[in-house]
């Protein structure tokens, strides 16, 4: 893959996109298809499909964002994952290389959690400034673009049933829970120049054959092919600059050779994921914006959400071989509803999730006490295990936030991010409810033992530059456009107001398509 175009650093008519994952990569291609020129600055390097091995830890080391970060607060990560608050990717394609492909839409009520449940003590819940109806057409476009199975947009059939799925389907039938094949952005038939899934497994280690959608080999090369988009890998942005009027003028970054550069810009789109995006705005503080760029609301970095998660792995009398096939083949959807009678607001999905032996050995009982007979005996039953991952709505809490460390610096001399999070009581009640439901589910198909796993470092990171109707309540408006800096946009999951009971990628892509349409309109009418 070669760059087809190189733009000048002094070209001030470009959209500069920071980050190349689901958000940034989609914005780049959508703009390119509409004739708008852009430069994508990506901190990570380029990978090829041949780099993707079916090996969990090898790929963890190869793909993960391992720059220094610190976990703080009341969550167990502060002790057990002290340097890895989140599990995301550093590379061209971002975390769309790592995502499992689960493509669920938010439900209509999930855009209106404030009006649905009223004020919740200790949380900072708000309604989105957009409704389900506003985003629905873009969900359909996203499903078509990404190739999501079982949707009207593609007409693609579901992926075939695996043993892992069969066990959950029968358990759901026996317990009256609702089972669903997962809508996956993984080709069940050859489509759009990509092959059909071979049920290899290792979806989260980079899809070896490219059957799973990733901007790495869809949006980004397509944007490049137009000759209107330049992707600069190994380019870490340090600071967004602005003029006296408070408009963004360009970005300071370190290029692949370690040289400091300044790229001028007409528009800046920030899509570095929910830790790096607010970190960049905070690091861009200036005399005019002493609390950080675009931060007149004080909400930059706040309301950090992952999902309410955990895992449940059951041991069964006979083999399941959960590792055979896609990592997330199916779902239990009965608890997605908002039903405060359960003792908590919002809902959760139960997503069937295969872990390999390597990851299971680390996550079964994370932390320094995760050794001994309990662990080794569990792992001897690997073949007979099945498991789910809990994906529950995490409430926005103001003090769950990204801040800059006062003294610690990264390899570029920038203050490292501190990710502070403490579970809201709602999270604890929800998680326990999920553990209880899973026990019911797994006992119905003969589980002999259950292992409840605490949360893993999250790949779902949301909320730290949230949308709001009023400038005082959030960082960006309903287009992801900064309330304070008109030519600055947030193009990733950090613009989420709430987290929903579903994986964020489909919504990130739908918002990115919608945002790119808006930016193109503004650019073409000289309104930006």
């Amino acid at each position: 893959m070669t760059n087809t175009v190189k733009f000048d650093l002094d070209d001030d008519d470009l959209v500069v996109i920071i980050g190349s994952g689901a958000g940034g990569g989609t914005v780049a291609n959508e703009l390119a298809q509409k004739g708008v020129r852009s430069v994508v600055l990506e901190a990570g390097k380029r990978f090829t499909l041949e780099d993707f091995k079916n090996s969990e830890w090898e790929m963890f080391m190869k793909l993960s964002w391992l720059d220094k970060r610190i976990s703080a607060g009341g969550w167990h990560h502060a002790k057990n994952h002290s340097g890895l608050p989140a599990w995301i990717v550093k590379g061209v394609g971002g975390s769309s290389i790592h995502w499992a492909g689960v493509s669920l839409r938010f439900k209509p009520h999930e855009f209106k959690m404030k009006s649905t449940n009223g004020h919740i003590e200790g949380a900072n819940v708000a309604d989105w400034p957009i409704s389900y109806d506003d985003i629905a057409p873009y969900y359909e476009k996203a499903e078509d673009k990404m190739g999501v199975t079982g949707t009207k947009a593609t007409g693609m059939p579901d992926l075939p049933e695996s043993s892992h799925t069969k066990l959950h389907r029968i358990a759901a039938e026996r317990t009256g829970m609702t089972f669903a094949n997962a809508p996956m952005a993984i080709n069940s038939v050859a489509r759009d120049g990509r092959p059909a899934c071979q049920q290899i497994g290792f979806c989260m280690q980079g899809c070896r054959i490219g059957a799973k959608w990733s901007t790495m080999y869809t949006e980004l090369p397509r944007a490049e092919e137009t000759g209107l988009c330049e992707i600069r890998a190994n380019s870490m942005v340090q600071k967004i600059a602005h003029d006296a009027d408070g408009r963004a003028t360009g970005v300071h970054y370190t290029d692949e050779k370690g040289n400091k550069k300044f790229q001028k810009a007409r528009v800046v789109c920030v899509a570095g994921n929910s830790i790096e995006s607010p970190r960049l705005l905070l690091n861009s503080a200036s005399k005019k914006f002493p609390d950080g760029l675009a931060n007149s609301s004080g909400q930059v970095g706040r309301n950090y959400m992952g999902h309410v998660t955990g895992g449940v792995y059951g041991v069964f009398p006979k083999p399941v071989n959960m590792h055979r096939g896609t990592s997330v083949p199916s779902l239990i959807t009965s608890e997605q509803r908002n039903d405060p009678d359960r003792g908590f607001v919002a809902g959760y999905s139960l997503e069937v999730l295969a872990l390999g032996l390597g990851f299971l050995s680390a996550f079964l009982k994370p932390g320094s006490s995760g050794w001994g007979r309990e662990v080794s005996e569990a792992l001897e039953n690997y073949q007979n295990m099945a498991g789910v991952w809990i994906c529950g709505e995490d409430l926005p809490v103001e003090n769950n936030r990204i801040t800059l460390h006062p003294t610690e610096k990264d390899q570029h001399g920038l203050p490292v991010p501190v990710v502070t999070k403490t579970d809201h009581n709602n999270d604890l009640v929800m998680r326990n409810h999920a553990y209880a439901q899973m026990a019911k589910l797994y006992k119905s198909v003969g589980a002999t033992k259950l292992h409840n796993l605490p949360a893993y470092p999250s790949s779902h990171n949301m909320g730290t530059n949230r949308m709001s109707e009023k400038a005082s309540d959030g960082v960006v408006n309903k287009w992801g456009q900064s309330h304070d800096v008109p030519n600055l946009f947030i193009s990733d999951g950090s613009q989420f107001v709430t987290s929903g009971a579903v994986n964020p990628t489909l919504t990130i892509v739908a918002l990115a398509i919608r945002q790119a349409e808006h930016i193109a309109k503004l650019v073409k009418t000289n309104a930006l």
Partner: protein
Amino acid sequence: MNNKNSSISRRKFLGSVGCGVAGTVVATTMIGSVTASENKASTISMPDSGHISQTMLKLAKDIYPHEMLENKYYQKIVDNLAKQEKKLIGEGIAMLDQLSNEKLGQPFLNVGYEPDRIRILRSIEDNPFFIKVRTALMFGIYDNKDLFHLFGYQGSSWEKGGYKNRGLNELDWLND
């Protein structure tokens, strides 16, 4: 890391733990911060290598006990670690023996009663020495493709065409 050992054993070690740096990164990012220990052992004289090797085997089998796993697999992992981290491991074993002598009147290797050994190990599970040994074992056993089959795990599958036509759905003990 010490690079005095031959490149062959180094490579073998890397092979057995999957990825050399992984051990260190995972120990600090995934397992937790390696806090500075109140390591009193630096004043203690180093145990001989035979004793270290035997004690490490005992320790390894207490950390991840598997009847199905022959001693040689444990031994290889811990001996390679002891070669690479001579000081940390030597001092760690000395500390372990000191603790064992204080509590049970004999070196760790001679403690026959498993719950006694586990109690001592639980008390040092946050110690950098213990974390290092545990991490090496975690990679050496569970991220070791030579041992996957013992656990019913099949590892890499893309080169075999995945499972689409190779046992994707053969669960037959549960029926609708």
